[in-house]
């Protein structure tokens, strides 16, 4: 069952059409929303949250109609916005507890959950500090904490690693990965950073010009057309390339002693095939694996 779906959705800002007759289904799990600037990703999220009224079409989130059940939808979802946002004058625990109360939690439960969520997000030590004194990384974490305090079934993360240093980024991605796998929370991540999506998401939706241009699981999208193999030798060897070419393979790329080859047909035993070619070329094989496309290649191909 999809967590969200839109049917013939069109959203206009004055004369500009941001989303044009979009139909898509967002599956369960962690889904990445990719696309160049102006592709309509944020507009899609805003429409699903009821912040923007569509010109035509319909949408559903967790089986509820976007147009008529906005309040119920917003109770079951969490939003981590892209820009810095907090309620001024509050410390972290008050802010997160307040967010829980706004979501409909009783006060005592909201306070208890606020402590738990802040511990989970790594802000346990700083929970009584005023949010205005937080670093960028801490502000990102508190945005996540306020989004998950009420135990939503779906969370929207808009550029969750914005402004984070490498260590902070790693920690945030680990948090997203943890929260979206085995915790019963579905996550939609909108990001420009393809490695982030690759690390955290199971499925990807690529948008361009307000329409979906590719949508599948990350594994399927990264699959290559035909059989491709990456071979790592002990040393560069032109002879190995010649042997492989004579067996019907085609060299795609070479980086040092690493070769990426496309095979004309899938051999019954890939290992035996590679090792025999290496033996003929008198080189050692350090490693080999079926080649996968990077998400960047998938993205560039989709939006080209």
């Amino acid at each position: 069952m999809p967590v969200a779906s839109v049917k013939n959705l069109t959203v206009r800002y004055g004369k500009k059409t941001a989303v044009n007759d979009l139909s898509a289904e967002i599956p369960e799990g962690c889904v990445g929303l990719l696309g160049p600037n102006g592709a309509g990703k944020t507009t899609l999220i805003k429409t699903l949250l009821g912040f923007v009224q569509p010109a035509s079409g319909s949408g559903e989130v967790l089986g509820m109609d976007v147009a008529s059940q906005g309040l119920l939808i917003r109770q079951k979802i969490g939003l981590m916005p892209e820009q810095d946002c907090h309620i001024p004058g509050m410390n972290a625990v008050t802010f997160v507890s307040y967010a829980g109360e706004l979501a409909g939690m009783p006060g005592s439960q909201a306070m208890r959950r606020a402590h738990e969520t802040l511990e989970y997000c790594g802000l346990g030590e700083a929970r009584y500090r005023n949010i205005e004194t937080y670093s960028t990384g801490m502000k990102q974490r508190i945005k996540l904490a306020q989004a998950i305090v009420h135990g939503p079934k779906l969370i929207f993360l808009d550029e969750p690693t914005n402004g984070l240093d490498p260590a902070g980024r790693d920690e945030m991605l680990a948090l997203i990965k943890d929260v979206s796998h085995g915790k019963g929370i579905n996550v939609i991540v909108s990001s420009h950073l393809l490695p982030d999506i690759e690390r955290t998401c199971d499925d990807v939706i690529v948008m361009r010009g307000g329409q979906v241009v590719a949508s599948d699981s990350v594994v399927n999208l990264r699959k290559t057309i035909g059989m491709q193999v990456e071979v790592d030798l002990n040393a560069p060897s032109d002879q190995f390339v010649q042997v492989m070419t004579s067996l019907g393979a085609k060299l795609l790329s070479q980086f040092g002693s690493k070769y990426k080859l496309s095979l004309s047909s899938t051999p019954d035993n890939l290992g035996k095939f590679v090792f025999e070619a290496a033996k003929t070329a008198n080189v050692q094989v350090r490693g080999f694996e079926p080649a996968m496309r990077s998400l960047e290649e998938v993205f560039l191909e989709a939006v080209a």
Partner: protein
Amino acid sequence: MSEIPPMIPSIADAQPGPIADLSYRNYDGPLNVRLFRWWIVAVAGLRLAIKKKGFWIVAAISILPYLIIGLTLYLSSSGVNTTLSPVPVGQKYSSQFFQAAGLQSLWLFIIAVLVGSSSIAADNQANALMVYLSKPITKGDYLLGKWMSTFLAVTAVALVPSILLYFYCLLSFQSAGFLKEEPWLFLRVIGAATIPGIVHASLIVGISAWSKTPRMAGAIYAGLYFMSFALATMVWAIAFQGDLSEGVMVRHLAIGTAIQGVEQNIYSVDVRQPGMRRRRQNKKKAGQTGQPQMDLAIEIPVPNVGPMVLLVGSYCVVGVMAARSRIRAVEVVKG
């Protein structure tokens, strides 16, 4: 002989770790779409307001007019000659409460600026609207909550000293006909105490919603408050210099005097305004004749209730509508 390593690691070797389970757990408790969602916003606003030191200082100062009036009443009842001027029967206490409310009005305005200017402007500054509106609350809930927090703060500061003075009068002046002469005074006190809260809250949330910073909102409201007073008083004084008791409505066009006009209607008392030109003339005459100075204060009648309510109501509607038109989760730029 080599030492045999211990089979069980010592406590000192153990890695420190959290005692509590810090992993994420789902929340399965109640989640209600509450009818009074705005109350959560209002309570949070009030909590932030009472955290400000300035709020308590101004609130304490604003009690002084009621303290002075209470003291004056006590002294006059003890036979000491006070400045209490003779008033018609049935207005003795009402006029005292009205006078205290008038003296307190500036402090209530400051309370409104302290609490209300940051109500929405601070959220604009910190992008908090997106947090609010991504939760199950509507624009109306948010606005009502913000309005209510300012209203309650201002009204509480107005109401507490006036109720205390009322009870002091009730205990001390019952034999002087306190309840008999003015039986509806308690309701009048409550009614009059809510008017500044309603007007200030409505106007300041409107200005706050359109401001990027609380400071800007406060400055704009202060400018509007004092400028409107200066303009209305000037126009009234110039246009009706012959007889200032005429054209009372012009005087009440300003924010502060509009509030005063409604309060005057609620207490149903006449205002005694000192007439500067007459006083000067009187001094001259007194100098010539050697006669004692006469009381030449101008009696300003109670303004008509209909236009006053309409004026104050329109101020409130304009403020609230201005705020409502501005509150949105995301800025939509139409191209």
